[in-house]
């Protein structure tokens, strides 16, 4: 499932790369789609050339590839999500374990980017997704449904960035003019979670 997750994320990001770049053009520098597309192509290559033997290896390998090939702000940030997940994910993988690892991944991004929810960044999609996973674990729902709830939460979180004024990253330069546009990183985070729901077992 982990390999499939990144393959599906790569597919979605490739499909939506122009939308992501357009979002970044509005409040950034018009490269987010290209950046992430390049990075996920590299993830695909890494996972194909060096077939990973465990979920942990998938996450670490993917995170590393993103750091090594994306550049910009989103490279280190996304890379950290997955590398941190890989660091703490316990095997055998359970929904609870996945949720806990994901939570730590999100914390790593918040720490690295010094970003909190409401700053109009990818955190605004990742944090709600993480919360949705935690709730799903608490309520004992199935994996597929849990992932679907996380995807929904991420999508809503991304949409909720529209009225926000950016306080981190390039969009913050715009001050009030950043209001009214969806954050590209939040939009791509929503794609990652949508991919997760699609490949749910």
């Amino acid at each position, binding site marked *: 499932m982990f390999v499939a997750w990144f393959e599906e994320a790569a597919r979605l990001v490739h499909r939506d790369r122009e939308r992501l*770049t357009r979002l970044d053009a509005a409040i950034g520098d018009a490269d987010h789609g290209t950046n992430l597309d390049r990075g996920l192509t590299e993830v695909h290559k890494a996972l194909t050339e060096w077939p990973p033997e465990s979920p942990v290896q998938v996450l670490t390998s993917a995170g590393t590839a993103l750091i090594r090939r994306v550049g910009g702000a989103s490279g280190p940030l996304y890379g950290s999500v997955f590398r941190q997940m890989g660091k703490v994910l316990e095997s055998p993988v359970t929904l609870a374990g996945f949720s806990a690892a994901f939570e730590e991944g999100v914390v790593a991004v918040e720490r690295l980017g010094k970003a909190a929810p409401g700053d109009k960044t990818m955190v605004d999609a990742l944090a709600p997704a993480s919360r949705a996973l935690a709730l799903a674990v608490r309520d004992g729902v199935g994996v597929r449904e849990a992932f679907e709830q996380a995807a929904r939460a991420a999508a809503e979180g991304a949409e909720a960035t529209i009225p926000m004024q950016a306080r981190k990253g390039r969009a913050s330069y715009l001050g009030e003019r950043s209001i009214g546009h969806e954050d590209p990183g939040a939009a791509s985070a929503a794609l990652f979670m949508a991919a997760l729901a699609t490949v749910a077992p």
Partner: protein
Amino acid sequence: MKKLLNTADSMVEDALKGMAAAHPTLRIRDRVVYRADGPRQGKVGLVSGGGSGHEPLHAGFVGYGMLDAACPGEIFTSPVPDQIIEATRAVDGGAGVLHIVKNYTGDVLNFEMAAELAEDVEVASALVDDDVAVQDSLYTAGRRGTGATLFVEKIAGALAEEGVPLADVADVARAVDERSRSFGIALTSCTTPHAGKPTFALPETDVELGIGIHGEPGRARVPMAPARELAATAMDAVHGDLPLQGDLLVMVNGMGGTPLMELYVVFAEVAAYVKGKGARVSRSLVGNYVTSLDMQGFSVTVCRLDDTLTRLWDAPVDTPGLRW
């Protein structure tokens, strides 16, 4: 959009090939641009880098008296840690390495990661954040690094050639940044090769004030005005933040698509403005140095010189983009 390129994907690589072919003083390997005669034992190494599309910054400033290596990222995308680590190790002559980093989230994160990972080399870092168009507050990522990057690279590079320790080179780099301010105005948006259309739409009648060097839109849009007024707008912003006084180093910089003739027109106004404030243009630079692809417009960067900075600015430099 028409651009001289083969494919958008290969553009950075193709341009680096051209640089290598044009400048025998450079050596280019694995997306890092080095001085062909480096590393120099005992000299602090200077590494900078950032997204491509700002040429001649940074790779054009590799050479005697300036950078030892530059790490060009994809267009408008900071380099990745691998490049920076590679460059840092390669230019270390035993005296440590200074990273000159423009203050953007991506640049900062990637340089930080690289500095951590290149743990075998002593690394100091100097942040450039001179753009007064951005308020430095809790509510932003802080000021952007723009034109002053050139000043920092030139002056720190000159000091490094004198064989002083890393801490001193880092100090002078930070001093230059602290004494420098910039403001930019765009007549047109740039177009990134991947997006294929202008990053922001700007009607024939308007200019964008306080733009970044990545096609980030500015903070306000106002009607197009004569050069005198645009220059005053930029200089008011600079002067309001760091009063102009004493001897100044002043750069009027084109955004990539700005003809030199127009930059001279602006420079005349800037010089008159400086004089009006009782300060003095002691050193100057007019040209396309810190650019934003094909954007039309200009930025002005001012640094308050002292004797040391003047001496270091005047020191010989031999790079493709700056030479005297």
